């Protein structure tokens, strides 16, 4: 813990005063909204900007094209045309000239006058902005590599009494104020904006426009630019016909850039707080004040990262009570000083920064304490180490797949995916990817606890078909024409001992075998699907490599299906986007419609939802939908009560099976947000995690989840809504649940690297378990009684009865069939079988005394 130096800190704060008085700071101005899509990548080896294109495009519907921006930290000196020393020591000041004619004046006043310019150049752009669909011409951006002029800096230090500051701190502040003055004069104070500084830190650049984020990459020709850290932002502002690039994200401090999804309600109060510290915003958005606040905490106050995060996202309620005593003390002090500046409302920040004096780069994701915005974190540790943060998992997966295609140091699927629990004592609601001097990447949570995928396993490189060994035992096995389940069982048992080459050979053999006839194809589909879904010991080979390989082969098998337009009566028929309007009914009721959804738009009249609806009306009953790239609303509103089965593969987007009534969905992957929203009847099986607000308003049906739930599942669920969740749930579970004929089982288990079932620390770490519920029950597998009544709100925890066990056992048996999670294994605690009432506990609602009193007229 660093001791804050009062002497150095307060002068910096109080001396901002002369610069900021008179800044255009009417807080009555309308604040633009910050609903959006965000993405961040930190990689131990530099990656090119082009890999951001696809994920940003796939998050278009989180923005509206009225604002987009990119930041990059950890650039290549060679690409920028400077020496390594200059890249390390100089500030890269990028000025966006909305009015190119103002440049001469700006340079004379703020650049050449105060700074030594090592290199000045206009950044490259394409010729015509309209050619990439931009309506507003982006500003001309000039890049200057600068240091403060010695004499100017000396004057600055003397005048302000900064002799006690480290010289780099003083120079940082000098640069900061210089930019502030430039922005004030050429942007904030003017009706017609002329110029503003997009970034001015060391080894960091920011570009932003009125347009989509990927258009930034295209316009400024950043596709080839390499960097260790990238962040991108798709903005959804709503106010004003005229949007300014200065209002787009990212916003900067000094050596950092921040993007934000959400908007907070207390913009005014934060502005007041900052003004008391002589800081005034200029760009009239709530994101800017967040960036200013972050800068204050980290650069001016020099708070260690953990305390800066605490100041922005305070730990409260039960989570505070669960902290160790020494943390409680310091957090209390931080909160006393800072809580009124904590942003209040839905928000998720991604910060990219350079810590030049500690010689490290960092990518940080922080979520608000109520977890109101979506966030996914992910990590891959192979030859290269790469960390991701994004609003949607599908964006991350697209990016990593594209990277792996081009660079064999990357693998097509990440090792870990997880979600932060905002303001928690468990992870602090924040994760940090740090790239140190030796370009090693380390992931930690707010408390510094490391997150790593490193274990006894290794990533394995794909083997080309020439080099693939034959696999005689498989060929033998196939001669017997085994069933899919048997082939799967055989593989799952033996794959631990296979080399990756043998696995590749197996996968290729499967692909060929599928081509023989429909029967073999069915077997292969079943086998590969089980291999993707289930957990088993993969030996020293990473599971992610194996699953991504099998998924690829499975998609190859689907791709080679004959089209619906051809004439045969085979079991499978393929339809792609181009042909969708020509879809006809099935030749017989056992036919399976194979839908390649990759080219479909994210939603709307041409989307996957409408196609599925139409296909059902035409009589199709069996579906395989594969190659999802984040498309939404698949299966939404589908009423199909007569044995319709839909298998989903790929990165399916939000609102899957929303309002569905009758079908059976099998999702061979994790699902995203708002899944099974108002699900009415039918079955939904997810071989992975499920995102936010799962089964919100559900009426019935049964759902099975192999992995975890994030937050807010089963709110206002009624009727017979029933869910079996094998993982844990983070927070806000089952609010106002009234499903008298349904219930939820939460097992709190996971799988280790050997594919063995293990207990998680607790099935439910959050507060707000089953609040305001009127009926139904949550059955927790919690033999160690980790869940306490302080986590409830109007409920109580009971032991289960014989009737309870008889009620839930059939579902646990179905759970076993689907996922291979044995009922016996669930009943084992530390290897010993226990009675069900010693393993499961039941959370039930109680009448809320206060409300009952009110209603009887007291």
């Amino acid at each position, binding site marked *: 813990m660093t001791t804050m130096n009062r002497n150095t800190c307060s002068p910096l704060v109080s001396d901002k005063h002369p610069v900021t008085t008179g800044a255009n700071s009417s807080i009555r101005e*309308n604040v633009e*909204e*910050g*609903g*959006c*899509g965000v993405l961040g990548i930190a990689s131990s080896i530099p990656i090119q900007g082009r890999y951001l294109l696809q994920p940003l495009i796939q998050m278009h*519907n*989180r923005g*509206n094209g009225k604002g987009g921006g990119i930041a990059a930290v950890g650039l290549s000196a060679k690409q920028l045309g400077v020496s390594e020393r200059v890249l390390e020591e100089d500030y890269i000041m990028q000025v966006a000239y909305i009015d190119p004619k103002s440049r001469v004046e700006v340079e004379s006043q703020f650049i050449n006058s105060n700074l030594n310019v090592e290199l000045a150049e206009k950044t490259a752009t394409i010729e015509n902005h309209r050619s990439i669909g931009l309506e507003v011409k982006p500003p001309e951006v000039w890049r200057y590599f600068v240091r403060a002029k010695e004499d100017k800096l000396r004057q600055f230090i003397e005048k302000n009494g900064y002799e006690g500051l480290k010289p780099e701190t003083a120079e940082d502040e000098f640069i900061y104020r210089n930019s502030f003055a430039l922005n004030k004069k050429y942007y904030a104070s003017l009706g017609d904006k002329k110029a503003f500084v997009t970034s001015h830190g060391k080894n960091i650049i920011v570009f932003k426009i009125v347009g989509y984020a990927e258009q930034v990459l295209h316009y400024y020709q950043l596709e080839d630019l390499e960097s260790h850290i990238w962040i991108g932002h798709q903005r*959804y502002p*709503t*106010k004003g*016909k005229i949007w300014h690039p200065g209002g787009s994200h990212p916003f900067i401090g000094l050596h950092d850039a921040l993007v934000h*999804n*959400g*908007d907070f309600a207390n913009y005014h109060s934060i502005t007041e707080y900052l003004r008391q510290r002589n800081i005034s915003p200029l760009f009239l958005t709530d994101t800017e004040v967040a960036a200013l606040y972050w800068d204050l905490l980290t650069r001016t106050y020099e708070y260690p990262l953990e305390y800066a995060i605490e100041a922005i996202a305070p730990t409260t309620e039960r989570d505070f009570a669960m902290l160790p005593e020494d943390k409680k003390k310091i957090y209390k002090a931080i909160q006393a000083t800072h809580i009124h500046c904590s942003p209040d409302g*839905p928000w998720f920040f991604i910060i990219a920064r350079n810590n030049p004096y500690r010689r490290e780069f960092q990518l940080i994701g922080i979520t608000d304490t109520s977890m*109101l*915005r979506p966030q996914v974190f992910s990590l891959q540790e192979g030859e290269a180490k790469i960390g991701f943060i994004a609003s949607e998992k599908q964006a991350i997966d697209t990016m990593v797949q594209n990277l792996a295609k081009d660079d064999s140091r990357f693998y097509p699927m990440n090792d870990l995916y997880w979600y932060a629990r905002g303001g928690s004592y468990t992870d602090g609601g924040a994760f940090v990817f740090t790239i140190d001097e030796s370009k090693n990447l380390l992931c930690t949570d707010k408390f510094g606890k490391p997150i790593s995928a490193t274990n006894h396993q290794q990533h394995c490189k794909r083997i080309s078909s020439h080099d693939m060994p034959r696999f005689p035992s498989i060929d033998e096995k196939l001669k017997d024409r085994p069933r899919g389940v048997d082939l799967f069982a055989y593989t799952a048992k033996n794959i631990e001992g296979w080399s990756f080459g043998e696995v590749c050979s197996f996968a290729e053999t499967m692909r060929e075998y599928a081509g023989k006839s429909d029967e073999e194809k069915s077997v292969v589909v079943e086998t590969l699907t089980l291999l993707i879904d289930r957990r088993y010991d993969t030996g020293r080979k990473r599971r992610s490599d194996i699953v991504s390989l099998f998924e690829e082969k499975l998609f190859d098998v689907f791709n080679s299906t004959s089209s619906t337009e051809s004439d045969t009566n085979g079991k499978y028929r393929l339809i792609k986007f181009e042909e969708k309007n020509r879809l006809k009914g099935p030749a017989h009721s056992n036919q399976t419609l194979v839908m390649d959804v990759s080219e479909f738009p994210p*939603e*709307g*009249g041409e*989307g996957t*939802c*409408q196609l599925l609806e139409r296909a059902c009306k035409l009589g199709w009953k069996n579906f395989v939908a594969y190659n999802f790239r984040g498309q*939404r*609303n698949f299966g*939404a*509103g*589908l*009423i199909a009560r007569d044995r319709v089965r839909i298998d989903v593969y790929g990165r399916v987007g*939000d*609102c899957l099976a*929303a*309002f*569905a*009534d009758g079908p059976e969905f099998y999702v061979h992957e994790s699902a995203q947000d*708002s899944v099974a*929203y*108002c699900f009415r009847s039918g079955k939904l099986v997810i071989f992975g995690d499920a995102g*936010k607000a799962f089964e*919100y*308003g559900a*009426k*019935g049906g049964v759902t099975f989840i192999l992995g975890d739930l994030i937050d*807010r599942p089963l*709110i*206002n669920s*009624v*009727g017979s809504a029933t869910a079996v969740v094998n993982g844990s749930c983070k927070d806000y579970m089952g*609010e*106002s649940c*009234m*499903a*008298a004929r349904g219930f939820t089982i939460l097992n709190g288990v996971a799988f280790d690297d050997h594919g063995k079932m293990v207990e998680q620390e607790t099935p439910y770490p959050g507060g707000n378990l089953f609040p*305001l519920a*009127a*009926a139904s029950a949550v059955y927790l597998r919690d033999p160690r009684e980790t869940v306490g009544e302080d986590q409830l709100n109007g409920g109580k925890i009971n032991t289960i009865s014989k009737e309870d066990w008889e009620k839930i056992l059939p579902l646990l048996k179905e759970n076993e069939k689907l996922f291979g999670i044995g009922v016996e294994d669930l009943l084992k605690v530390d290897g010993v079988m226990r009675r069900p009432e010693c393993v499961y506990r039941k959370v039930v609602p109680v009448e809320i005394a206060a409300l009952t009193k*009110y*209603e009887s007229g007291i």
Partner: protein
Amino acid sequence: MMQGELFKKPIVKPAPSQYPASIEKYEVIIERSKCSMCGKCAEVCPTCIGASAIDIEAYQKPDGYLRVAVPKISCTGISCQRCVHECPDDALSVKLSPQYIALGDARWTAELIMSTWEQAEAGRVSKKYEYRVGDSGGGFDKLRFDFELDDKEICDDDPSNNEDRDTSIVLNKRNDGRPEIRIPIPVYSADMSYGSISLNVMLARAKAAEAWNTFTSTGEGGYPDELIKYKDHVITQVATGHFGVNAETIKRAKIIVLKYAQGAKPGLGGHLLADKVTPDVAKIREVVPYISLFSPFPFHNVYSVEDHYRHVQLMEDVNPQALISVKVSTPVDVDMVAIGSYYAGTHILQIDGGYGGTGAAPDIAKKNIAMPIEYAIPIVHNYLVREGVRDQITIMASGGLRTAFDVAKAIALGADGAVIGTAELVAIGCKRCENCERGKGCPSGIATTDPALRYFIDVDWGSQRIINLYSSWKRQWSHILEKLGLDNIRKLRPNDEVKFKKGRFNHMVHLDHLK
């Protein structure tokens, strides 16, 4: 009613009150000790010709007071007083009746209530009751159309004086391939859930909506099967509790309303108190009877504008033909909400102001927050004009719009139309006693799901009452348009920003600014 069929106005049929005794505004009191029973009062009374004015039996009652109140023929009141003047014994006096004094409040005055009853009964207004404004001291009650200041005699009840003008509005102005949906009157019927009101009331409103080729709404409590036959005229509401909302109820509707908030209780979701959650209500909502139902305030999957976009797009995917309406209350940044909804793909924005009603909220929450609707309308209208999108979205104002004149004023302030709640209930007999939230507490059998009380409202009678009310309102709108020299009601709505200048704006004046 098929699209393209020529709309025929429903016929006004008399629908008298179900009560045998009516509430009268005036009563004549006879001091028994003075009265010589000469019968002169009955002779001279202009309304009592041919009927006995004196009820001898009542005269002999112990309290000595006699009411000269023959059913269906009521006392003209203080402006007449012939009986008083002609009484040789000086035994008579004319006073406001106690019921009249007790009835109503500053917003829904006794006059407005009784006028609404009169219009519901006969389909027209008479000079007897004030039918345009209440007495709240603000809001629409302080606004007058220009012509109202000139005319001493306002709307008469001679049908030959009123042309029937075009009072239709279009609900889908986005030109996006979805049905345009034109309704012949600029109103539709508000969202009231099964649970807050009875099934019979829902049916009465739906039948009236069908007759007028407009809409009513399911409210938050689900879509009773009995309503399906009116499905072309029933809006499905999707509220935060999603009670009874499923793919069928979404797909069958022509309009879907996403209720983000309600003016009467912004910041709160529905709160249906336990005694109103009867087994029937519980069944349709699939919940446990007699336990209070809480709907969350926000949609738990909509916390940001791009979530709202996703939400609207989801509804459009489930029902590609339906129009999407978004119902919001009136916070300070209601304009931001409006533009966000527009970009999300919404067709109709319903702004629900603070005077709105609710049958499902505890007392402390009712009406104590949210901006009054008369402020919110021009704020939203002006903002959308500046953004250049005003003519692509329909704004419906709601929250305590009581009369045809309120609706017209709302349109003159910038709305396209209005959503009517309480006025319909008053039309079928609501006396505004404000006991709506307690299940057995509605003495009119309206805001109740009590299995016996619900039959108090007969569906056919109830629908005719509402049909009559809207007939009367249409005549008044035609009258207003005639006076203002406008062809149709869409021209009453300003095209440009509404500007308030020296107390005047867009055909209206604010009384406080008159010198």
